[in-house]
């Protein structure tokens, strides 16, 4: 078990090294959230609730997109650069390595937090934070929740090349579903039910509970607990799926000479 943990940590380290080698990575992390922040600033001027959504919504969008990048594009890249077989044929379970890898990108995702917060403060758009420790906890919880959903999504990318076609739908689907930019209560009934099954929906609520403009003023305990429970359940589901996927991968891999 200690050996698995160390392998997972090495995967995190390798991912961080690769992600931070190029300034382009940070540009990629910053573009989507900054665009949303600017749109928010023009469309919702003077509204504290609106600006809370603009600043924190764009932060959460940036964080999720960065994590999703590790779970999708980076795994597709592992496939094309032929390093995926090394992970799959190692004695350490594939899920452990990919958890490490995705957590690496979850750490990189805090670059989105830094970029958006800096721009928001400089532009005088930063909303009033009523509970700073809760905000930090909410952001960490969101990064962890994103990593667990990313791990679940990554199964598809490991199993089939065709998963690359799902890219935007999965990335932006979470923007829409998890209440990053607006409360999930405005979603139609069945869609809202699906949103409530995702850990990011609850960790986003923790973030909004920490700033002025939270629409329902609920206590943070419930969303924290639900977010953690759903993240644990998602991780478990991903690990079980990986066990099935490994068998499928080995049974159905493409022919070679």
């Amino acid at each position, binding site marked *: 078990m200690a*050996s698995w943990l*160390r*392998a997972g*940590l*090495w*995967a995190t380290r*390798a991912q961080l*090294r*690769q992600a931070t*080698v*190029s300034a382009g990575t940070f540009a990629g992390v910053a573009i989507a959230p900054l665009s949303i922040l600017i749109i928010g600033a023009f469309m919702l001027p003077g509204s504290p609730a609106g600006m809370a959504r603009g600043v924190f919504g764009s932060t959460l969008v940036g964080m999720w997109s960065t994590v999703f990048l590790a779970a999708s594009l980076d795994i597709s890249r592992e496939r094309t*650069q*032929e*390093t995926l*077989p*090394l*992970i*799959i*044929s*190692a*004695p*350490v379970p594939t899920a452990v*390595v990919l958890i490490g890898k995705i957590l690496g990108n979850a750490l990189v995702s805090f670059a989105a937090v830094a970029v958006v917060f800096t721009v928001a403060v400089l532009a005088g758009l930063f909303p009033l934070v009523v509970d700073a420790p809760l905000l930090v906890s909410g952001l960490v919880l969101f990064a962890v929740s994103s990593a667990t959903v990313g791990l679940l999504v990554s199964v598809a990318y490991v199993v089939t090349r065709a998963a690359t076609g799902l890219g935007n739908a999965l990335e932006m689907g979470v923007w829409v579903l998890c209440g990053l930019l607006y409360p999930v209560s405005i979603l139609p009934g069945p869609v809202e039910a699906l949103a409530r099954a995702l850990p990011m929906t609850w960790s986003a609520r923790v973030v909004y509970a920490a700033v002025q403009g939270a629409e329902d003023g609920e206590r943070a305990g419930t969303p924290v607990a639900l977010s953690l429970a759903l993240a644990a359940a998602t991780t478990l589901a991903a690990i079980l799926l990986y066990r099935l996927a490994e*068998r499928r991968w*080995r*049974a159905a*891999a*493409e*022919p*070679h*000479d």
Partner: protein
Amino acid sequence: MVAAIECQALTRSFRTRSRQGPREVLALAGLDLSVGPGTLFGVLGPNGAGKTTLVRILTTLLLPTSGHARVAGFDVVDHPNRVRASVGFTFGGDRGLYGRLTGRENLLYAGALHGVHGRDARRRAAELLDVVGLRESASRRVETYSRGMRQRLHLARALMHRPPLLLLDEPTTGLDPKAAREVRQLVKRIQSTGATILLTTHLMPEAEELCDALAVLARGRLLAAGRPSELKQRSSQPTVIEVEVETSPVGRDAVAAIRALDHVVAVEVLDEGQRQRVRVHSSGGSGPLLDVLRRLELHGLRTVNVREPTLEDAYLALVHG
């Protein structure tokens, strides 16, 4: 003693789609193979012979459709993790490395995936970087490495967890002659440490130079196996005795006299300007050589060359009949 690799009736088929509908392709068709510990074993075969499929099954990346494959006594289906711990592998080409990590980081990462950590991993990586001649480049990102350097790093990475079996899939493909020679020398050095190596290749001189034993595959079947010298002996190709003469033309009588000698299968006379080349095909090796020279000495002997059947002759005869 447990065989390093043992395959029994190993079969792997793939379902492919074409315009005519789904089709079953047999990549390995009931392969029986045994490789003893410490052997450098070559697998030869044309494209589509099943070489890479065999390597992928032995690395646990693929499941066999039927039959068994065991590595160091462990079945690849029942004990994949024991097999993974016993095998190091490289696939040909310059992919399969993390370009944005340094050479040393690639090795440490590979070590971590196989349970080699901390000081042991750092010591092992340093030792291997020395062995493969990459100590000076260890801190450079791999994307700056040449193809030959990458291939040497592949070998080092495959050895990080000290596996008793190394699977090398066309390790010199695409390398320039100098880099290919360095890799071959490295493979020999690795074998001298007692490792078992299974190497697939298209290159006959490489197989002849490196391998203790060979298997020839075609369309997923084992056509022949044995030492390189045994395979050459099995070749139906005759020995060729070539004599260059320069003073007077070789007439019909001389050709008839040579053709009458024991073991001579055929005689050809090739005109090359002022010289002639007499090519004698012998089924008895170089046995008729002296008699051939006696019958040609009046014509002014210039050069004599005896060419035994090569591994390539044997291979071509086996694969293409």
